C-alpha cells in the first residue's frame, strides 16, 4: 500500500513525494505543498487506488522553527477499503496551501476548521470563514502559543 501510493504519485507527478512511512499499519505519504491538489486528484481518479472519500483534513502545530505546521489529509477508498494519509508541511511565514475542495466538495468544512484553528489559508477555497470561533476572534486557538485557559477579553461580548 505504501509503495503503491508513493510510486503512483512519483510516476505521475515526478518530485512530488518527499517521503513515505508506515506506523502501526497506517500509511503516511508526505507530499510537496504546492502539489497537494494535483496529488489528491490523481489518487481519486486512479482506477486502482480510487480514494473517493475524504474522511478528514486537520492541522498540527509541530512547534518547530521551520515548517511549523502540518496539514494531514485522511483519505478512504470505498473499493479497496483502505485508508491513506497525505501530509504537507507548511512554513509559518507562508501559510498558504492549495485547496482540495475541487477534488472533494467534502473538504470544504474540514479546511474551514483547519483555517479556524491554525490560520492556514487554503488558496482557492470558495468560502474560507471560521468554523467554530466567532468571526471577530483574532487568534488561532489550537496553535501551541495559544494558552489553554484562553486570552482574557479575546472574545467579543455583546455591548450593553
Amino acid at each position: 500500500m505504501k509503495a503503491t501510493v508513493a510510486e503512483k504519485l512519483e510516476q505521475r507527478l515526478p518530485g512530488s513525494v518527499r517521503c513515505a512511512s508506515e506506523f502501526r499499519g497506517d500509511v503516511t505519504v508526505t507530499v510537496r505543498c504546492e502539489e497537494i491538489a494535483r496529488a489528491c486528484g490523481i489518487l481519486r481518479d486512479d482506477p486502482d487506488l480510487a480514494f473517493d472519500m475524504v474522511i478528514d483534513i486537520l492541522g498540527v502545530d509541530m512547534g518547530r522553527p521551520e515548517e511549523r505546521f502540518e496539514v494531514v489529509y485522511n483519505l478512504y477508498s470505498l473499493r479497496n477499503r483502505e485508508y491513506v494519509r497525505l501530509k504537507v508541511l507548511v512554513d509559518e511565514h507562508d501559510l498558504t496551501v492549495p485547496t482540495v475542495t475541487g477534488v472533494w466538495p467534502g473538504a470544504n468544512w474540514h479546511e474551514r476548521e483547519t483555517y479556524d484553528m491554525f490560520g492556514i489559508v487554503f488558496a482557492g477555497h470558495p468560502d474560507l470563514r471560521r468554523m467554530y470561533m466567532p468571526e471577530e476572534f483574532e487568534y488561532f486557538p489550537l496553535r501551541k502559543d495559544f494558552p489553554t485557559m484562553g486570552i482574557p477579553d479575546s472574545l467579543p461580548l455583546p455591548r450593553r
Partner: protein
Amino acid sequence: MPVRSAEDSKKSRILSALEDQDTTVMLDDALENEMILNMGPQHPATHGVLRLLVRLDGETVMAVVPELGYLHRGYEKIAEASTYHEFIPHTDRLDYLSPISNNVAYCLAVEKLAGIEIPERAKYIRVLVCEMARIASHLVAAGSMAMDVGALTVLLWTFREREKILDIYDVLCGARFTTSYARIGGLQQDWDERCTAMLERFLGEFRGDLLEVENLLGTNRIFVDRCENVGILRREDAIALGITGPILRAAGVPRDLRRDRPYLVYDKLDFNVITLTESDALARFYVRIAEMKESASILRQALAAMPAGPYRADDPKKVVPRKERIYTRMEELIQDFMLVNMGIDPPVGEVYQGTESSKGELGFYIVSDGTGHPWRLKIRSPSANNLSALPLMLKGCMISDIVAVIGSIDPVMGEADK
C-alpha cells in the same frame, strides 16, 4: 417620526402604527420576494444548538447555510493539556446519546498508538456496550424524527425502550449518561451477571416493541408523506462529501467499518450491512430501524460467545491496576501513582482509528511526542460531516421539510461542535 398627510391623520393610531414602514412588507409578487430566515440556535427541531440561515422564496428553500460552533468547548485543546486517561470522561460529552461507544472509540485509538492488546473478554464486552449504544441512539433518532414531523407518541415509546438500556448502563458502570466505562487496555469493571439477565429480558421484548413503532409510523400517511422524497442526497454527492453512517447507507453505499475495517471482534460476528437506495428522509429512518434489529442480533451472538477471563490487560506500564490492589499492594500503588502523574508512555508516532458509531465514522487521530499527553488529538466527528450535506439536501424543499431532514440526519451538536 414620518410626517403624516391629512388622510393618514383620519385613521386610528393603531392602524397607522401597523402601516408603519418597518412593520408592513409590500408584496408586489410573492414569488419575486426572497426572505432570509434565521432558524436556531435556540429551536427545538434543530436538536441542540444548530443554527441555519435559510433563504426562502415563498415557502421554497433556495439556499441554506448551517452555522456551527455554539457548543464548541475546545476538547482538542483540552486533550493536549490532559493525560490519555484524563481525556476519557470528555469523550462522553461528544456524542452524548451514545457516550459509551465514544469511550470505546477513543480507547481503541490510544491502544493502537501504545500497542496494547486487550483480552478477548474485554473485546466482547466492548461490542456489547457499543451495540447497546447504537440501539439507544437510533431509538432517540427515530423518536425525535417522528416528533419533529408531528408524531409525539413514538418519542415516548422509544424513550421507554432506551430507558431499559440506560438501566443496564447503570448496573454496569454506575452511570446512565456519562458512563466513562472504557479504560485504556480494557474496561472500568467486569460485565455484571445481572446485566446479562437485564439484556436478555430487553432483547426478548425489543423485537415486538420495535415492530409496534415500525407499524405505527410505516402505515401512517402523514409521516410517510412528510418524509418520502424529502431531503434527497444523490449517491455520488454523498461519497464526495464524505458522508458516513446511516445516511450513506440509505444512499446505497454499503460502507460499514465494522465489516470493512473490522475492529474488536466484529469479524467473528454475523450481521448484515443495511442499504437502501431511495436516499430520502424515510429511507434513513428505515435504515436505522433495520440496523437496530441487526444490533439486537449482534448482542445475542456476543452474549452467547463471550468467554471468561480478565477484562483488563495486564500491562503495568500502561494499564491502570484494579482498585482493590492499589489499596493493598505496594507495586500496584506505585504503578497507579506513576500512571496518574506521568501518564502512559506511548512511542512517538501518529495513528488514526475509525469506528462505526451510530452517527457514522467516529475517529480519533492522535499525534504522540512520546510523553503522557497527546501532542495533538483530532476528533473526526460524523455529525459535523453529515451536516455539511444539509445545503444540498434542502435545496428546493419546502420550509416544513427542514425539520424532517434535520431529524433524518440525526446530528448531535456536542459531537459536531466538539
